[in-house]
C-alpha cells in the first residue's frame, strides 16, 4: 500500500503542483483583487469590499456584452454541432476521398484565432464586396459595419474553425458503434433516418455531452477571433465578455472592476457548463 501511494503521488503530484501554481493561486489572487481598488500599476492597494461588484451591475456595457455573448453562444453551439456531426457522417461513409476530406475539414482548427480573424475580415470586407459589386447583391456589401453582420461574421468564423474539431470527436463515436447493430437494423428493414434516430443518436450521446461542453465554453470565452474580426465594433456592439473584461482592465485601468467581472463570468460559465454536463449525462445509454 505504501509503495502504491508513493507511485500515486509521483504521477499526480507534479500535475497537482502545476495546477495549483497556474490555476488555483491566480484564481485566489483574482478573487482578492476583485475586492480592491487596484489600477494595475500602483503598489498601494485599498480593500473596498463589494463596491466593484456593485459597479459591475450598474455597467450597461457589461450587460450588453453579456446578452450579445449569450446570443452568439446559442447560435454557434447549434451551427457548430450540426455541421460537425454532418461532416462526421459524410466522412464515415467509406468514400474514397474521406481521408483527404477529414484533413481539409480539420485544417482550420490548426490556424490561430487571431490570424483566422484577419483572414475572414479580408473575406467579409474585400471578397464579399467584390462579389457583391460584380453580381449586384447589395447584402454582400459593407459587412462588419453593423451589429448583425458582425454577429453572423463571428458565427461563420467560429463554425468554420470548430466544426472540424467536433467532426473528429463524432467520428470516434460513430466508429465505436458496433456493426452488428447496424446490420441487424438493416435486416429488420429500418431505413437510413430510422437507423440514425434509434441507433446512431443514442449511441453517440456521450460525444454530444463532450461536444456541447466544448462549444459552450469556447464560445463563451471567445476573445482572439472577436478582437481581430470586429474589434468589438461598431460602437462596441459586438464586444463579447472576455473583451469587455480585458478593456476594463487595460484600457480603463480598472483592474478591480475587471476582476469582479471575471469572477462573475467564471461563476456563470461554471454554472452553465456543469449543469449542461449533468443534464446530458443523465440521458446517456450504457452499452
Amino acid at each position: 500500500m505504501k509503495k502504491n501511494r508513493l507511485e500515486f503521488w509521483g504521477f499526480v503530484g507534479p500535475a497537482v503542483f502545476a495546477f495549483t501554481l497556474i490555476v488555483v493561486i491566480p484564481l485566489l489572487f483574482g478573487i482578492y483583487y476583485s475586492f480592491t481598488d487596484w489600477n494595475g500599476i500602483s503598489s498601494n492597494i485599498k480593500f473596498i469590499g463589494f463596491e466593484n461588484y456593485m459597479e459591475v451591475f450598474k455597467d450597461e456595457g457589461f450587460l450588453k456584452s453579456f446578452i450579445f455573448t449569450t446570443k452568439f453562444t446559442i447560435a454557434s453551439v447549434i451551427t457548430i454541432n450540426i455541421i460537425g456531426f454532418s461532416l462526421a457522417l459524410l466522412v464515415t461513409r467509406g468514400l474514397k476521398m474521406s481521408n483527404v476530406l477529414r484533413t481539409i475539414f480539420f485544417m482550420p482548427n490548426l490556424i490561430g484565432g487571431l490570424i483566422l480573424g484577419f483572414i475572414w475580415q479580408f473575406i467579409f470586407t474585400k471578397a464579399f464586396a467584390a462579389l457583391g459589386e460584380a453580381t449586384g447583391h447589395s447584402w454582400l456589401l459593407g459587412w462588419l459595419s453593423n451589429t448583425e453582420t458582425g454577429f453572423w461574421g463571428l458565427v461563420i468564423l467560429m463554425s468554420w474553425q470548430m466544426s472540424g474539431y467536433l467532426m473528429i470527436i463524432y467520428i470516434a463515436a460513430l466508429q465505436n458503434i458496433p456493426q452488428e447493430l447496424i446490420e441487424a437494423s438493416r435486416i429488420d428493414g429500418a431505413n437510413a433516418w430510422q437507423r440514425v434516430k434509434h441507433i446512431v443518436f443514442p449511441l453517440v450521446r456521450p460525444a454530444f455531452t463532450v461536444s456541447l461542453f466544448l462549444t459552450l465554453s469556447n464560445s463563451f470565452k471567445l476573445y482572439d477571433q472577436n478582437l481581430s474580426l470586429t474589434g468589438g465594433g461598431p460602437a462596441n456592439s459586438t464586444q463579447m465578455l472576455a473583451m469587455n473584461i480585458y478593456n476594463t482592465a487595460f484600457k480603463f485601468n480598472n483592474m478591480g472592476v475587471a476582476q469582479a467581472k471575471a469572477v462573475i463570468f467564471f461563476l456563470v460559465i461554471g454554472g452553465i457548463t456543469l449543469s449542461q454536463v449533468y443534464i446530458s449525462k443523465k440521458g446517456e445509454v450504457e452499452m
Partner: protein
Amino acid sequence: MKKKVFSVFACVLALMLSLTACGSSKDTASDKVNVDVFQFKVETKDALEKAANMYMEKNPNVKINIQTVGGGDDYGAALKSKFASGEEPAIFNIGGPQDMIDWSEKLEDLSTETWVSQAYDGTLAPVTKDEKIYGMPFNQEGYGFIYNKELFKKAGIDPESIKTFADLEKAVKSLDSKKEELGLKSVFAFPAKETWVTGLHLSNVAFSNEFGNVTNAFNAKELEFKYADSLKKLLDLQADYAYMPDGKKASLNSVDYSTQVEELFSLGQVAIIQQGNWAYGSVAGIDEELAANIGMLPMPLEGVKEDSIPVGVPMYWSINNAKSEEIKTASKDFLNWLYTSDEGKDLVINEFKFIPALKGYDADNLQPKDTLAKEIIRYSNEGKTMPWVFMGYPSAWGMDNLGADIQQYVAGDMTWEQLVEDAKATWAKARK
C-alpha cells in the same frame, strides 16, 4: 524496489522542471551595465537598434537591450505585465498626464538633464508636475487633411486659398461635382472604424480650442463641448462626401486605416483624407510619385480657429527610478546622446525620420525630407498650430465612449444632441 526508484526519480524530475521554470533568467556573467529599453514605436525599431549599436561601440561598458511592442493599448498592457512580472525595464514610454499619474511611483526626475533647455515651448507641460519633469519628448507629429495635389490641379482648385471651413466646403463640393472626370470614387475616405481617428484626432480640434492645453483638459471635471456645432460640421463634411462601401452611411464603420490610406488614397480614388505625417510611409510604399506630391490642408473649426493643424508630442521617454544609479546614468546618457549629439541628430532625422521636439536641428542635412513633415514644419513656423489634448481625456474615453458614439451617429442610431449629452455625462462620470 525498481518501481520505487522510478517514482522518486519522477518526483525529482518534475520538481526540477517546475523550479527551473520559475527561476530567474538574469545574466550573471557580464559586468556590463544593462539598460533594458521597452518602447512602442514599431516603425523605428530598426533605427533604434542601429542607434543602440552605435552607442555601444562608443561605450563598451554599456549593453542596451531593446524590446518593441506595437502601439496604443497593447503597449500599455504589455508595460504593466512587464512591471508586474518583475522584469522592469530601465527606459520606457509614457503618454501624457494620465500615464504620468499612473506611473508616478516609477518615474525618475529628469529636470536637470541638458536637453531640457532645448525643448520647444509647451512640449514638456504634459509630463511636468511640481516643477519636476518626468519625460523626454519622442518627437513631434501633426495631422490635418492630406490632399492629392495633382487632383486639385486638375479640378482647378488652389489649395493655398483654402483657409476657412467655407473654403474647404466649397473645394469639396467642387471636387464632388467633378468626380467622374477625376476618376474619384468620392472626395474623402472616412475611417469610422478607427476610433482613434474620430474619437481622438477629430475631436481634438474642438477640445484643444475648448481647453487650450492638455493639462487643462486633464484637470477638467466637466466637459462644456463649446464647439459641438462646428465639430459636427467638420465630421459631416467628411462623412457625407466619403466613400461608403455599400452606399449607406452606416457602412463607413467598416472602413479602416489601411482602406483609407493604402487603398483609396494611395491609388488616387479619393482626394482628401484626415491623417498625419506617419501616413507618408504607407503612401510612399505604394506610390512614391504620389507621396512626393501631397500636401496638408488645415482642419478648420468654423468660427473658432480655421487655418491651423494640430501638432503635438505622441509619447515620452521615461526612466525607471527603481534601477541602480549606474543604470540610470547610462540611460540618461544614451537618450542625451541620441537627441543632442551630432551623430544622434543625424540618426533622428535621417533614420527615425522624426520631426524633432527639441531645438538645435538647424544644419542643412538635418531637415526632414518627406513632404508631410515639411508641411508640418511650415505650419509650426507660421504659428498655425493647435495642441494635442487627447492624452488628457479620461482613460479610454476618447476611443471607447466618444469614438463609439460617433460610430452610432454615423449609422443613424444616435442624434448629435444625444452624442453631446452622452459625451458630457461619460466625461463627468470618469472624472468623479
